[in-house]
């Protein structure tokens, strides 16, 4: 498995939410480390470092891309309890086994169970990776149990004290709410109790630290020029383990996968960001409009600002992609 690079602050934020029984959405563009971060939350040896009482927490992780065709609210809860009975810490396993014997996975039975868990200081953390896929699957017609499952998840994770929900998604919470607004146009949106933990580009210092730990200093400098602070590009370089300081060689070897990434990630940019990047076309921009979107692109690791305030693509890989694939001819 690819190791999680950096992300200590985000990991701290996620464990802090988990420790206090809150729910969260880890959001970011593709390949920024969301799944790896979620996987860290599920690892017992990592939890033991961050949580005061890991033995009182059971973690259930679900991949939203791998849902069975007959997926319903009832089958979902059955699979949760099957896992809890097999893998949860002993105190939770006993409770889950007793509950499963009733065979009642209705919303109110679940509420009683999780409330009781909360009162006993026990908790289940439900981690859903690829939450966008999970939602699409759930919302595919006839979607008979979508509202029931989403409403129950919201209620149990915000009110019972016995369930935390942590999802990883490309879209932001407001967009997830919008996606399900047709199901519940009145009342609270299903995801407004999820706190966002946003995965953007690495901080400059963090990126340097990762590169210096992974490469000789001469190669690290070349990699930095090619990848900038962008998490996916850095991860690509670390996996490629280049042994040459030759810039063009590195650029050519990483470009195919980087281009693929930019193509997908570009579709997830909001506001004026796509227009702005098209205008930039790999060149330098002294003073563009749309300052909010500029800041967002800097945060994502697409752009960087020079000391004199001039904007430029944050990596050679992006500059190359913009020049060759995306620059609009508006002359």
């Amino acid at each position: 498995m690819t190791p999680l690079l950096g992300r200590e602050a985000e990991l701290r934020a996620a464990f802090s939410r988990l420790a206090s029984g809150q729910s969260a959405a880890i959001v970011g563009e593709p390949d920024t480390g969301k799944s790896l971060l979620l996987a860290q939350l599920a690892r017992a040896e990592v939890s033991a470092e961050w949580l005061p009482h890991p033995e009182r927490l059971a973690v259930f992780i679900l991949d939203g891309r791998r849902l069975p065709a007959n997926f319903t609210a009832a089958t979902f809860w059955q699979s949760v309890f099957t896992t809890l009975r097999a893998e949860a810490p002993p105190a939770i396993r006993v409770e889950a086994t007793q509950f499963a014997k009733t065979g009642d996975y209705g919303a109110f039975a679940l509420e009683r169970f999780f409330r009781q868990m909360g009162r006993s200081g026990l908790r289940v953390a439900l981690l859903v990776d690829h939450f966008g896929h999970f939602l699409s699957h759930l919302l595919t017609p006839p979607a008979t149990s979508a509202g029931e499952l989403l409403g129950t998840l919201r209620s149990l994770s915000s009110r019972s004290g016995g369930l935390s929900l942590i999802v990883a998604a490309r879209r932001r919470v407001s967009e997830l709410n919008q996606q399900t607004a047709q199901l519940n146009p009145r009342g609270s949106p299903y995801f407004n109790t999820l706190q966002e933990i946003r995965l953007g580009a690495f901080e400059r210092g963090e990126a340097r630290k990762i590169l210096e730990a992974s490469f000789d200093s001469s190669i690290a400098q070349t990699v930095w020029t090619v990848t900038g602070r962008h998490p996916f590009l850095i991860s690509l370089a670390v996996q490629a383990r280049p042994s040459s300081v030759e810039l063009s060689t590195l650029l050519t070897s990483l470009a195919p996968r980087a281009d693929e990434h930019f193509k997908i990630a570009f579709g997830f940019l909001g506001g004026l960001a796509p227009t702005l990047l098209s205008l930039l076309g790999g060149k330098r921009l002294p003073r563009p409009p749309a300052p909010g979107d500029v800041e967002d692109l800097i945060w994502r690791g697409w752009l960087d600002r020079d000391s004199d305030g001039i904007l430029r693509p944050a990596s050679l890989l992006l500059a190359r992609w913009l020049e060759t694939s995306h620059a609009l001819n508006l002359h």
Partner: protein
Amino acid sequence: MSNPFLPFTPAFGPDFVNRDAEIKAVFERIAKRGNTAIVGNPHVGKTSLLHHVATPHVFAAHTPNPEQYAIVEIDFQLFGESKTRHDFWRELIAQAVESNPAIAAPLKPLLKKKEVDEQALFRAFQKVGRAEGCVVAFVDEFDHLFNLPAFRTLDFLGALRAITMKSKGLCLITASRLSVAQMNALGEEYKVATRGSDLFNYLDELTLGCFDEASVRTWLKNHLPPEAVDEALLLAGHHPLLVQLAGDALFDAVERGVQPPGYPALRDALIHRAESQFQDVWKYLSSKAQIALIIFALRDLRGGAGGQTFNLEKAEQTLLWYGSEVKEMARRGTLETATGGYRIGSVAFHLWLVEQKIVGTRGDEPQEAFTQWLHNKQFKLGGLITNEEIAWLQKVWKVIPTNIIDLAKKALLPNALQ
């Protein structure tokens, strides 16, 4: 010391603060067998208040004869597509029996039936009432019922109304975003309402707004140094969620050794964290309220942006046209009272309004408008920027007030802003 701020999570148990007046009001109404609709904006504390007053020891502390009551807590979001009104009544009765078997005894036989007959229900609650007992049902997310065809029916809503109004054995305390008037209007829309009577007129509305200054300051002082308290109040105003968010960010900053000059750098992150909340609040405002809020946002710029000086006396005058919207926003905590009127209490919300809804530099909305603007200006790329573009921001700022006021006068502003 662990971080005591828990944004986006209802404040239960010792985390619950403030709301003394509202708690008193709810218990006064329960004593008179009156029904209450707790109404408010997203994350203003409806669920927290509802659960707090339903907590047995709090209930007992505020009620002379707590043994006369059975307490029920229901979250309407637990009802999905497959549920019916019978499931609601069965759950309510099951909880009442569990809470106080003696008081709820007349209801217990109904649990044996798969479908609950409304006449039988009425008679059973009447028996509870005649024995001086009362089932108090705290129903959260009450307006979710409008999403469920099985519940927006006269069978359900009519029976609920009749039993709570006439049996004396059931007292209803609801929490919803929708006001009683809005719920009555929806009753009409779904053709549920009976001739001559509003469906929800038995609910006495209690609107939740912001916290008061003294309580917030005292609470923050328990967890933050004085400079951080001031910054939190500046960022959040007195809105419960924003106070939690600002407190959370500042608590973390203080732990990391950030000094007061570094606090303003936290603002951008806070706006991002609160963005879904701001969008949610904005979406629920009427068009007129949105116009009024934009005028407040412009007025509060105080002429400082982009080096331009605004004269917004006209804007202030136009606010007179939106008197009822302004008052409603103040009641719900979107605006706060200030010397001589109202203001946007939170700097974070104000900045979001300016950036998202006035300048339009974040989010999805302005893309088309901006592209159009580029074409209109015959924007040209020569690899570098034109003089026109360099002047863009300043020009926009310069023309905004006139445009906004003109659009507002023509009631076109919401379209222009969405």
